[in-house]
């Protein structure tokens, strides 16, 4: 399978990437690691006329301690998030989940920013960053702005990013109880997208593949805040979701999985020291 024709442009800096995006508008797509976009282009589900390759922007690959939060450059690869000592210590949920994305080859190429900006409801890291209550930084021609994870996902593959904006940084607040986390992912084969997944941190719950966007399990969180036991709270995991019926699973099965996985996750998060 070969993508339909496009013009390849390699950006040498974030400024150059923004200039190219302004020049080509809706016809252009940013390419980071390419492990979400290129498969869609090969299937001809996406056919951008211009590809702006961000692979050369090594200055957007970093993990740094900013006191109350950890700053992660958008071009940081899953492999580097997985092996970051800082994240392993301060945000173990994120380091662990990055190591469960795809397979080693995919983690050598795929980036955290690419995964979020692509906004596939079946991908792992958006739900993880929802549970971590992260903040995103987007840069445009007029400067940078912050976007809360809760406002970022607007529809299937739709985000709050403007066409001429570039996601540059992910800010992850250091959890109050770094050990109070869990990541659960149910797949047919190890490398598959999750049929359903969930991430838990400090009583916040993010769901993978339970609707058109990655989402928080608000009903579970409310039950926990109201003093419900983890098992009772997890019974609400499918409330407010709109999971798909597809070749891998029915909606009813996904709802069942959400309840089971959230129960396991809450129990595991509670059991860590």
């Amino acid at each position, binding site marked *: *399978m*070969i993508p339909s024709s496009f013009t*390849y442009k390699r950006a040498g800096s974030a400024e150059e990437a923004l200039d190219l995006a302004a020049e080509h508008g809706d016809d252009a797509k940013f390419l980071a690691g390419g492990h979400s976009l290129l*498969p869609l282009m090969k299937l001809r589900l996406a056919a951008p006329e211009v590809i702006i390759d961000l692979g050369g922007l090594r200055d957007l690959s970093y993990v740094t301690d900013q006191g109350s939060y950890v700053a992660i450059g958008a071009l940081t690869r899953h492999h580097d998030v997985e092996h970051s000592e800082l994240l392993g210590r301060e945000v173990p949920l994120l380091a662990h989940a990055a190591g469960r994305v795809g397979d*080693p*080859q*995919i983690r050598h*190429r795929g980036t955290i920013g690419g995964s979020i900006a692509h906004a596939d409801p079946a991908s792992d890291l958006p739900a993880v960053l929802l549970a971590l209550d992260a903040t995103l930084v987007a840069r445009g021609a007029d400067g940078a702005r912050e976007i809360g994870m809760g406002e970022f996902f607007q529809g299937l593959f739709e985000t709050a990013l403007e066409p001429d904006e570039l996601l540059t940084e992910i800010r992850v607040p250091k959890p109050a109880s770094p050990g109070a986390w869990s990541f659960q992912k149910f797949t047919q084969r190890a*490398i598959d997208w999750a049929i359903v997944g969930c991430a838990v941190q400090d009583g916040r719950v993010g769901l993978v593949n339970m609707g058109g966007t990655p989402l928080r399990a608000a009903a579970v969180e409310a039950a926990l805040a109201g003093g419900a036991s983890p098992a009772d709270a997890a019974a609400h995991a499918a409330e407010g979701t709109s999971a798909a019926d597809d070749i891998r699973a029915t909606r009813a099965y996904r709802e069942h999985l959400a309840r089971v996985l959230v129960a396991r996750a809450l129990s595991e998060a509670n059991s860590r020291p």
Partner: protein
Amino acid sequence: MKVDLTVNGKDITADVEDRMLLVHFLRDVADLTATNVGCDTTSCGACTVLLDGESVKSCTVLAAQASGHQVTTVEGLAANGEMHPVQRAFHQEHGLQCGFCTPGMVMAIVSLLKENPDPTEEQVRQGLEGNLCRCTGYHNIVRAALAAASEGKVSA
């Protein structure tokens, strides 16, 4: 567009379509046909090569993205007529049946051992999650990876 890759230590400059995939560049331009196209959907790992020393699936990388970078295919592993330790281990442990997944398996293991020179069996199995063997000959492939790791320890 013009691309300039270093493949198995050799500079290759070519004029290719912007949309050309790295695996097609390797097979059709560089004439290195050991790297197989299996699933073509980033699933099976048959097309695994090293990009700047790390395993990647070359069906999901553009030749343009690899321009200016180093690529190693299985043809580039042997040195001075001697097989690479991972190749030798596949031979000794009979780590293949039909052989189609083998080049990708070998490259994935070379990358795995570079990151973790002394893996447990479980770490090898996890490290090969991105490579499928449709003959299901995984046991001997895992044995080969462990044998290559232990040879590495002896010679180190």
